[in-house]
Every structure is written in structure tokens, then in C-alpha cells.
């Protein structure tokens, strides 16, 4: 049973049948329906392996990120592109803005256009959705974990432990009333950071106080507003942990303009190691995520799948954790110079 038999039976050329399978958008609905019903009658199942060989000639992989303006996202993109370029592939960059509908749309479109592989960062898809993708023969790798994800090719950082380290450090510096300025997305990351915060408090013998947890937009303005609320609520705090450097910068801005001394009155730690954090006054203590390396490793995993041979077990997945680093600078109250705690 092959494509030629289908073409003969349907009274069309082999090229038309091929087009129905690979570029359905180029065939009229009538012709498409006709050929599909012929295939069904003949119980024709396309040879997926042969199709994949055909489709590797697109030489493209898709990278879905949630915010083009986010410096961390662009570091991932840089890492991915670096590997892809070496392999002779191009990268198609898509902005999902954490919108599940947008994400699905992009994935569907890219797969229809025979993209060779996908890298999904902070995916909103559930494990069951991903397994469906796998069954379709899609090659994909995830960046960032969420609770539903299980047995997938994934590169991630442990946000819980990273946050726990930072909060523990504040506690060793003598801070006990540590406020949180949390963004809203990506939700799994925020949850992990909150858990890490709670774990550190528990270890340090400090009671968790909900009143110290504030949510806001993940942006400089968002951080500014959160700090304003904190001051307005007159919550007693001696440190603030912001879930991103962007928010931390906004917090810093507001506190300084309100005459609060950092770190003397309130110590401040952010997350992401934005370069500008090392240039503000006081220099921002932060956790650096190995984003560029995440991009490198995600792309490497993806090409392992794309180039995979029959020897590789179908079910074999690779999970790679990458280490984050607490970068200690003046804003946390540490008198010494920039140090890195591994």
C-alpha cells in the first residue's frame, strides 16, 4: 500500500496526494475531502518515518517564549540559536504571553508547516496535551517545570531551592520580617518560589505571615506599586524578596523615594541577574538563572531527538537540572564585595 496506489484510485497525481498530507492548505477542500475518503476506504496510513525524512528539510525549529521583552527569555533564545546555527537550522521565535490559546495556535501552525522541532518555555500545556503531541510524532523539549509534567524531555532550574537559599541567607544576616513581592506569571515558577520562601522560614524558625506576601505585575511598575502598597499598609518588614529583578528595581525605586534606606532599613533580593542590577545603587543582590545555558541544553536535547537513531529507546527522556547562583551584592546587607554562593 503506498501513495501511488492512493493516487491511482483517486484519479490524481502522486504530488497531489503528497500535498494533501504535507501542505493541505495548498489543496482545494473538494480535492482534499475526496483524497482523504479514498485513503480511508483503502485503510491507507501514511508512513510517518518517511514523512519525517521529508520534513527534516525545513531546517527550522520553533522556540516559544512568553515575553519578547524579558531579558531571560532572550538569553534562552540566544543559547538556542547558537546551537541551531551550528547545526544549520533556523529558529522561529514565537511570543505566547502565557496565553494557552496562543500557545496552542502556534504549536499547531508550526507543526502543520512541518517544523522539525519545538522548544516550549514555561508551557501552559498539561502532560496529557504533550503526550498527544508526542503521538503525532512531534519533536519537542520543555524549558521549565510545572507540577503536571512527567516523563518529558526537559531542562529546568529548581526555583524552590534557589529561593530557599536566598531567604536563608537573609535570615543569617539577621532579617526576620521578610516581605515577598511576587509576580503573576509564570504560575509554576511563582508557586515554587513561594514554597522555597516558606521552607526557608520554617528552617529558620520563623512563622509564615500571609500579610507579608504581595502580588503584582511582573514589571518595574508592578514592583513600584507593590512597594507603595507595602508602605501604605505600614507592614513591619526588614527585607523584601522580589520574584524578579524587574520588580526588585521598581521596589528599590519606590523605597528610595520614600526615604527608606536599603539595605540598612530593608534588605532587598531579586531574581534573574539582570545586568542593570549590578549598576544601580545599592547593587542588587539576586539569583542568576543560567538562562543562556538553558537555551544551549534545550537545543542540544532537541537535536538529540531530531537526530536520534533507531537505537535510542522511544521512551527514553532526558531531564537536565541547571544550577542557579545566589549573587551577593550590597542590597542584601552584606558588607563585603560581590560574592557568589554556589
Amino acid at each position, binding site marked *: 500500500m503506498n501513495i501511488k496506489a492512493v493516487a491511482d484510485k483517486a484519479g490524481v497525481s502522486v504530488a497531489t496526494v503528497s500535498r494533501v498530507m504535507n501542505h493541505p492548505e495548498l489543496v482545494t477542500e473538494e480535492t482534499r475531502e475526496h483524497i482523504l475518503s479514498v485513503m480511508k476506504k483503502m485503510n491507507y496510513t501514511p508512513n510517518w518515518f518517511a514523512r519525517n525524512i521529508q520534513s527534516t528539510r525545513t531546517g527550522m525549529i520553533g522556540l516559544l517564549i512568553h515575553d519578547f521583552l524579558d531579558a531571560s527569555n532572550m538569553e534562552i533564545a540566544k543559547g538556542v540559536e547558537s*546551537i541551531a546555527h*551550528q547545526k544549520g537550522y533556523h529558529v522561529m521565535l514565537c511570543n505566547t504571553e502565557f496565553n494557552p490559546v496562543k500557545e496552542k495556535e502556534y504549536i499547531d501552525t508550526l507543526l502543520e508547516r512541518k517544523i522539525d522541532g519545538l522548544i516550549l518555555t514555561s508551557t501552559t500545556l498539561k502532560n496529557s496535551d504533550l503526550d498527544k503531541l508526542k503521538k503525532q510524532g512531534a519533536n519537542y523539549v520543555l524549558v521549565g517545570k510545572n507540577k503536571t509534567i512527567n516523563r518529558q524531555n526537559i531542562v529546568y532550574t529548581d526555583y524552590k531551592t534557589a529561593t530557599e537559599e536566598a531567604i536563608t541567607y537573609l535570615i543569617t544576616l539577621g532579617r526576620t520580617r521578610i516581605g515577598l513581592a511576587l509576580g503573576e506569571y509564570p504560575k509554576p515558577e511563582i508557586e515554587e518560589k513561594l514554597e522555597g520562601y516558606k521552607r526557608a522560614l520554617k528552617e529558620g524558625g520563623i512563622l509564615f505571615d500571609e500579610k507579608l506576601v504581595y502580588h503584582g505585575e511582573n514589571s518595574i511598575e508592578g514592583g513600584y506599586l507593590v512597594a507603595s502598597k507595602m508602605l501604605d499598609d505600614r507592614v513591619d518588614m526588614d527585607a523584601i524578596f522580589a520574584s524578579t529583578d524587574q520588580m526588585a528595581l521598581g521596589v528599590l525605586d519606590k523605597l528610595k523615594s520614600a526615604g527608606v534606606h536599603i539595605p540598612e532599613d530593608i534588605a532587598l533580593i531579586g531574581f534573574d541577574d539582570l545586568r542593570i542590577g549590578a549598576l544601580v545603587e545599592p547593587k542588587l543582590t539576586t539569583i542568576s538563572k*543560567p538562562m*543562556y*545555558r538553558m537555551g*544551549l*541544553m534545550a537545543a*542540544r536535547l532537541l537535536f538529540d531527538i531530531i537526530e536520534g537513531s533507531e537505537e535510542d529507546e522511544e521512551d527514553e527522556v*532526558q*531531564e*537536565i*537540572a*541547571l*544550577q542557579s*547562583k545566589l549573587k551577593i551584592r550590597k542590597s542584601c546587607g552584606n558588607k563585603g564585595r560581590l560574592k*557568589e554562593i*554556589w
Partner: protein
Amino acid sequence: MLSVEAMGLKLKNPVIISAGPWTRGHKGIRAALNSGAAAVVTETIVAEPYPDLSPRYAYDGRGLQNIRMYSALDMEEWIDEFKQIKKEGRSAGDGLIIANITAGTPSELAYLARKFEKAGVDALELGLACPMGEGMEIVAANPNKTYAFTKEVVANVSIPVMVKLTQSMNNLPEVVAAVEKAGASGITAINTMRCILGINVDTGTPILPTYGGYSGSPIRPLGLATVAGIAQSTELPIFGIGGVENYKNVLEYIMLGASAAEVGTAILINGYGIIPEMLANLDRWMKKHHYSSLDEVRGSSLDKLYSFEELKVEPQRAYLNSECSREDCGKCVVCCLDEAISFVDGRLTIDEDKCTGCGLCRDICPDKKITLKWKKI
């Protein structure tokens, strides 16, 4: 006669070229193999390379400080280098190739391990003890972390895995036990040591702008101590490294329990020419002492090392074995805390009643005229 079997591998002699920028890429590896060494360890390979800083070495004639953060080549470039090596072919007499790899997490390390096993290396050396930057030596001194990293790698490859340890462990038996339990096939010790080579006191500037790794002759006593300690804690083969410059140093490591020695800084400073010389001298030494195999030499000095409680106070005193012919030296006089050495009627004399046999003058004398002997009764 010089051949050694360790980790299921056959080494044609006990000299290995250690990890460092001299073993970068196919050119570096080929040069190392051509020296005649039994194996070569690649420069430490990482998933995300750091660029080479300038300057990155400082040498004061004795020890070397380096501020190299692993290989500046990335994984893909390394894999290409290995393809090149395969293309050029390895002859039957060639040494083995061992890839030194490191990472921030066990899963990242395991990924590198699988890649380089596929690339065709004969063994892996886990560089968990580098003192630069984030100070990986924290990992190598932590039994749990060492176990986690090693176990993940061992579970993912079938080639032998060696773990490179640091001098900076105060819990050596625990770390060694962790390495064993994790299923490693060998231990390399020691890595370079965290150092600041010096300060220019006129400008207040450190010679290099950050902490670095210290290597070369001055660290050899530290390496020897660690190797002896490891040899007393495990049956795993040990690869001694730290200040190996000549055949005697190779033997020192072997006599304290090592199966082979790794050479690094000496090659950087003096070139690969020292290797054939080392091997020829080892051969000569073996013949002179009527040894047919290094198995007879390995660990032979360990039972001459005693614990403090076993040491007895011996009544040894310093004696001149021939007249001192120098008039204006007097170094021994200055260093004697017991004031036992002096010039009597112009002749250098040691008062055996004042002398308590500390042994310092014996090494201070530039002419080697002083020996320690049991006090004459």
C-alpha cells in the same frame, strides 16, 4: 615492565598527562599522546564555556597560579575535535584518552558524560574539585554531593569513571567512601588549590585579580599526603597528581599507593620533552632495583608511615660528618633553637648535650655535612 592495569584499562606506563589547556583539542591531545604517556586527560569540558582571560597565569619560579575557568571550547567544538582524532586515527601504541568534565548538577554532568562516551573516550574524569569561580571544591569535599554527582554519571555510562578530589577535605574517609559507594572506578588526587600568588606591595594590586588554582612543585607534599590518606581508605586505583616533575616524583606517588601519576604544570613550563626522560629514568630505576613490575612498588612506603602514637622518641643527635669548610655561612648556627651549634676556636662544633635532634640543620646546611645519628652513650 612499566605497564599498569587499573580500572580495567591497560596503561603502558604510569605517566598520564593531566587536564589543562595543553590538552585542548585534537592538536593538544595528539601532542600529549606523541610524548609517550600512557594516557591523556582533556582540558575540563563544560556545557557553557568561559572565554580565556588575559592574563590567566602567574608564575614565580616555584608555583603557578591559573585563573582558567575550564575549557574555552564548547561541547560541540570538542565533539568535532574528537571526530578529527578519529579521522586521523589512533595507532596501536597510542595512549588512552580520558575526558575531564564538570557541571553544576548531576543531571547536567550525566549529559556531558553520555555525549563524550559516544565520542569515543576511554574513560571519564569528573572535575568536581576545581577551586576557581564558584569553588567547586565545595562539592568535592561534600560526601553527599560527591555521591550524587558520581552516581548519576556511573548510572549513565559503561566506561570507567574517575573522580578528581581536592586537598581541602577534612573528612577524607567519608568522601572516599561516597566515591566508592557511587560506583566510581578510580580516584584522582589532588586538584589545584585555591590561592592568591602574591601582591605587588608597591601598588597594592594582587598579581592576578581573583583567586586561582595553585599548582606545581610546592603542592606536591600536599598531593602526597592526600594520596596516602586515600590509599589507606580504599582499594580503588589512585591517580596521583600535584607537582610531578621527574621520575622520582612519579615513584613517590606510586610508593604511597597510586597506580599512576598525572603531570600538568611541569609540561606547561618545560614541554613534553620531560616525558620520554621520565619514562627512561623510571625504566632504569626499575632495573637497578630489580623490580619486574610496578605492582611490587605500589604502596611500599605506606607501612613506613606511622600514626603519632606509634612513634617512639629516639635519642638522635646531629653530627658533622666532615669538617665545615665555610667561614661565613653559619646558617646552621642561626637556625638552631637549642643553641647547640657554635664556632669553637674557629671550628664549627655541635654540642651533643645541647642538641635535641630536631633535624633542621641537616637540611639547612648547603654542603649536606650534618647527619642525625643515635647519641653515643
